[in-house]
């Protein structure tokens, strides 16, 4: 198992509907927490990677602003975007910067203030999340695309709307325990099943909410990590993949190929398999996304994801606890910050600092973060 790059600090703002501050102040919340967690100062940082989806920013080129506001001049800074997976793409680039020897301590900061633009502007941008020449002209939206994946999964494997609702029920259970989540109410199976259709078969409660939030990871070389950190969490495996933006370019819709490709690479690099994972954070922007993740990550065979949730195996006490921090469904989904928040949860789990949601003795954790409707897939495997 490679132990070349470690995560020595993590931070996250509370995720909220409307952050009452500017993007620089939002970013500061996660950054200051991560730096205190790592026990280092600004001058220790060798470079920063700033991750956000720029269509929500009024500030042009926010990386420059953040480097100044966070006290990271004159070190280099880089902006990085892969929509909803931006900050785990940042993790990969940060890893490469350290492994190459160019830098020894790298800050990966993700943020998104989705309320920065008006609701009307946001609706307009959502329509352009697809191929704007050939698909957006039909009136596409994220829920519609994931709904088409859900329908294909139902048709091929017999998965049901109730199976998806069970995933939301689980998410709300853990959302009630997460003080940094947007959605903290427990929902019953009936409430989930009776909510209105957004894009059939997906209903209101199959969808996560937009949010404002920030996350931060401090990465360090092995030498620096051993010198600074009492509890470094090692990046054991990383995988990334892509799939076509257009639906017409995909072989099938009952899974996300970018995630399969990313998982394979990450498992091989770490030298572990799905059976070795003690706790996982997967990209549940919609309930069907978590279902497909179970299968694409190998926690269940293709088509058997529903059995995992029906049998409660992805709860804290189950065989493979998934999204026991409430997931995106409860936390909310501030695009650029989401991946870093997932990594933070796993880091806390591996350090034994996850409180009410601690998986006892967790040694190896996995993060699965998807950009767009399966355009970009990132998987990270972390260990003590």
């Amino acid at each position: 198992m490679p132990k070349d790059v470690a995560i020595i600090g993590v931070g996250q703002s509370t995720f909220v509907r409307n952050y009452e501050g500017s993007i620089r102040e939002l970013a500061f919340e996660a950054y200051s927490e991560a730096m205190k967690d790592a026990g280092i100062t600004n001058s220790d940082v060798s470079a920063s990677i700033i991750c956000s989806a720029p269509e929500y920013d009024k500030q042009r080129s926010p990386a420059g602003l953040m480097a100044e506001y966070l006290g990271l001049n004159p070190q280099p800074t880089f902006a990085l975007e892969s929509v909803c997976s931006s900050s785990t793409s940042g993790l990969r680039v940060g890893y490469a910067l350290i492994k190459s020897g160019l830098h020894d301590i790298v800050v990966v900061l993700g943020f998104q203030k989705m309320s920065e633009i008006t609701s009307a502007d946001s609706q307009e941008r959502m329509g352009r999340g697809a191929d704007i020449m050939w698909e957006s002209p039909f009136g596409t939206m994220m829920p519609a695309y994931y709904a088409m994946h859900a329908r294909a999964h139902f048709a091929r494997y017999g998965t049901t709307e109730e199976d998806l609702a069970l995933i939301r029920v689980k998410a709300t259970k853990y959302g009630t325990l997460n003080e940094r989540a947007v959605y903290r109410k427990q929902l019953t199976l009936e409430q989930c099943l009776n909510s209105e259709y957004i894009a059939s078969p997906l209903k209101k409660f199959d969808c996560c909410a937009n949010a404002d939030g920030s996350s931060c990871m401090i990465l360090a070389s092995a030498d620096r990590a051993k010198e600074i950190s009492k509890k470094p969490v090692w990046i054991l495996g990383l995988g990334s993949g892509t799939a076509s933006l257009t639906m017409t370019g995909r072989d099938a819709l009952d899974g996300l190929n970018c995630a399969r490709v990313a998982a394979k690479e990450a498992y091989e690099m770490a030298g572990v398999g799905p059976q070795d994972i003690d706790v996982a954070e997967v990209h549940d922007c919609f309930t069907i996304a978590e279902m497909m993740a179970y299968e694409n990550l190998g926690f269940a065979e293709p088509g058997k994801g529903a059995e995992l949730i029906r049998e409660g195996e992805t709860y804290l006490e189950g065989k493979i606890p998934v999204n026991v921090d409430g997931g995106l469904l409860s936390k909310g989904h501030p695009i650029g910050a989401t991946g870093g928040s997932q990594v933070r949860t796993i880091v806390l789990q591996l350090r034994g600092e996850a409180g009410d949601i601690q998986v006892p003795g967790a040694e190896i954790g996995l993060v699965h973060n998807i950009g767009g409707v399966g355009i970009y897939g990132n998987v990270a495997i972390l260990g003590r």
Partner: protein
Amino acid sequence: MGFEKFGHVSFTSQTKTDAFVEYLVKDEIRATKCRKCGRVFFPPQADCSSCLESDMDWVKVEGNGKIISFTKVNYGPTGFESDVPYILALADFGEVKVFGRFSKEIPEEQIKVGMEVKIQAVSLPNGQVSYQFIRD
């Protein structure tokens, strides 16, 4: 004729594949086919990503397609608010797959994964042109 005529709401006016709209007006749905390697592209591409040439023919998308998946959209993005609900679908026509909408005359209850469809060109009330899936 510009590409901005394509679709319920257009986001693109200039493309080397704007002949697609001219064919659509003549009730034809066409794909591009690479003259060098024979690969067929739908949606049409001006350039071949297999052999990296840009010499294309226009070929008809005909016959029956099979529905791969579909969804009834109840909330639309900006520009589509008055248009909802509508049904989006992906269909497999063998050599190519086609993404589009179902004719509004077909209710959701009658649509199944695996059902056979044809595509037809349509003129929209706002003067735009598009295509839709109809029952075989």
